[in-house]
């Protein structure tokens, strides 16, 4: 019986392996071609490189390229992603908490407005957002275009609705008695939230981090508009497209830039695979 069973699983196993290799094939192409010269790459894009030592050389070219500015782009991507995520988690969870615990028409109305706003695509606000940010600068002197402040503000604005929605759903299921006991003990509302509720929200924090983290790290259109091209502050996706635009068809270097852009994500995925998949699933179903 057992042997029969394992035999029946051989074909699916082979199919899975083939599909797995097919899925990873494009990445394989990237790796082998990052170690080639321009001549080699046009002659034989499918063979192994003659000299793997070309990879560090190509990487060095990308590292020092003015179009990529790898180290500074990487740092900008980290600054933008991390500060947006930290603020999104804190601000959305505390907002969701007061929205759940305040049972008034206004409170419900605000929540429904946030939920409805999830339908709004970036396209309908992108042009006015630019002119409006420019307007804010002339009125107040606060620079929102081409600045960290502006792009983080934009990510909070576009990410908050879904985040509040996710926190809201979870907080509803937390029994009120927990907070009442703390009130009797003399805790103030803000303390109740940060000491008691905030730690309980851990699974939702993970979901919000993963969903928004993948989106913000990889986003292209919003940084393209808010940060602009040829700015000091550049994210990794902007840097790669900037390089690909400047070095048209220099595939050895474009693919090396792509490889270098993917390495941090792949490492991160291998480390946090379980929470990433769990977070993505939880976020999609709600």
């Amino acid at each position, binding site marked *: 019986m057992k042997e029969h069973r394992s035999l029946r*699983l051989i074909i699916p196993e082979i199919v*899975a392996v083939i*599909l*797995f290799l097919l*899925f*990873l094939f*494009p*990445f394989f*192409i990237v790796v082998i071609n990052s170690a080639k010269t321009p001549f080699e*790459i046009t002659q034989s*894009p*499918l063979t192994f490189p003659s000299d793997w030592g070309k990879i560090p050389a190509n990487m060095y070219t990308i590292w020092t390229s003015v179009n990529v500015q790898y180290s500074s782009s990487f740092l900008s991507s980290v600054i933008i992603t991390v500060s947006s995520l930290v603020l999104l988690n804190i601000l959305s969870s*505390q907002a969701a908490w*007061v929205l759940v*615990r*305040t049972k*008034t028409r206004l*409170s419900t109305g605000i929540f429904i407005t946030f939920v409805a*706003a999830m*339908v*709004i*695509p970036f*396209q*309908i*606000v992108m*042009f*006015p*957002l630019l*002119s*409006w940010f420019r307007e*804010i600068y002339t009125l107040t002197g606060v620079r929102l275009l081409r600045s960290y402040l502006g792009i983080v*503000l*934009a990510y*909070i*604005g576009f990410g*908050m609705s879904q985040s509040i929605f996710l926190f809201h759903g979870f907080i509803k299921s937390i029994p009120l008695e927990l907070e009442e006991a703390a009130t009797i003990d003399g805790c103030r*509302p*803000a303390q109740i*939230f940060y000491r008691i509720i905030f730690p309980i929200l851990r699974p939702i924090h993970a979901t919000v981090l993963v969903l928004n983290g*993948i989106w913000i790290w*990889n*986003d*292209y*259109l919003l940084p393209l508009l808010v940060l602009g091209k040829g700015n000091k502050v550049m994210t990794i*996706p902007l840097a*790669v*497209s900037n390089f*690909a635009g400047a070095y048209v068809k220099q595939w050895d270097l*474009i*693919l090396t830039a*792509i490889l270098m852009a*993917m390495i941090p994500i792949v490492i991160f*995925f291998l480390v946090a*695979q379980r929470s*990433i*998949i769990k977070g*993505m*699933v939880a976020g*999609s*179903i709600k």
Partner: protein
Amino acid sequence: MRKAQHRPIFWLFLAPVLLAFALVIVIPFILGAYYSFTNWSATARAGDTLRLIGLANYAGILKDPSFTFSFIITVVYTVFNMVVINVVSFGLAMLVTRKLKGRNVYRAGFFIPNLIGGIILGYIWQFVFNNAIPSAGLALGLQSWANPANLLLAQSDTALLAMVLVGTWQYAGYVMVIYVAAIETIPQELIEAAHIDGASAWRQLRAVTLPMIRQAFTVTIFLTLVNSFKQFDVNVSLTAGGPSVIFAGRPIYGTQLLAMNIYNQGLKSDDMAGGQARAVVFFLVLVIVSIIQVSINKRREVEL
């Protein structure tokens, strides 16, 4: 806080998100709606040159073959993409929920493209389609694969197909894990009962698996519909809107999806008002899709 009044903490905790919401969503949204009825452009930004021109921008959309064409191919792309992604993802989910030795490795492998930005994925596939595939053709003795005119990205219809291929590769792993999560909640007894009753694999799929994961289908169908409809990044890096085609007697971009059409109209043609009016139409389509989704979910709740 159960009394119907707002304590200071209510406003204190809400203030930051309300501020961000107003600055980033509400004000630009209202401004955008207004601008779509004006002659707004980079030169007529504000002040005395900006004036209302009624429905002229919307009338302009109707007369613009490039928008009509974009709209048609976006719908075609969206439907194809949705169907192909869901079929592939469901197949993958059925595969990796069996007791295979490497199932966790396969899951991770199928999922990985989803973590990498569309802009990067598009460049990778541009190289695959334009360089790797012709080279493979030569190695196999198929000269026609290497003919520049036969490349997938050389014709607008096959280039759209190539975008579906890349879109599927990008999203299949993500949609797969949603199906996997749903399949794993099916009680084992149900499957065993079907087994004891002698149900064939096909019958088991139709009578047990599919009905049990119906909710997952609603989620994945709308998720893939909306994401495909908004596709921009892969479009930019894979085809950049090309190659051109003749439509309604004019040469236009052959693979320019709506999101790119809006972007180009506003920034490349310096017609922000026209781009904005296009964005309003784009938004209304998404609103209709969402209303359908909400009503389907409501109906389901009643059934339960």
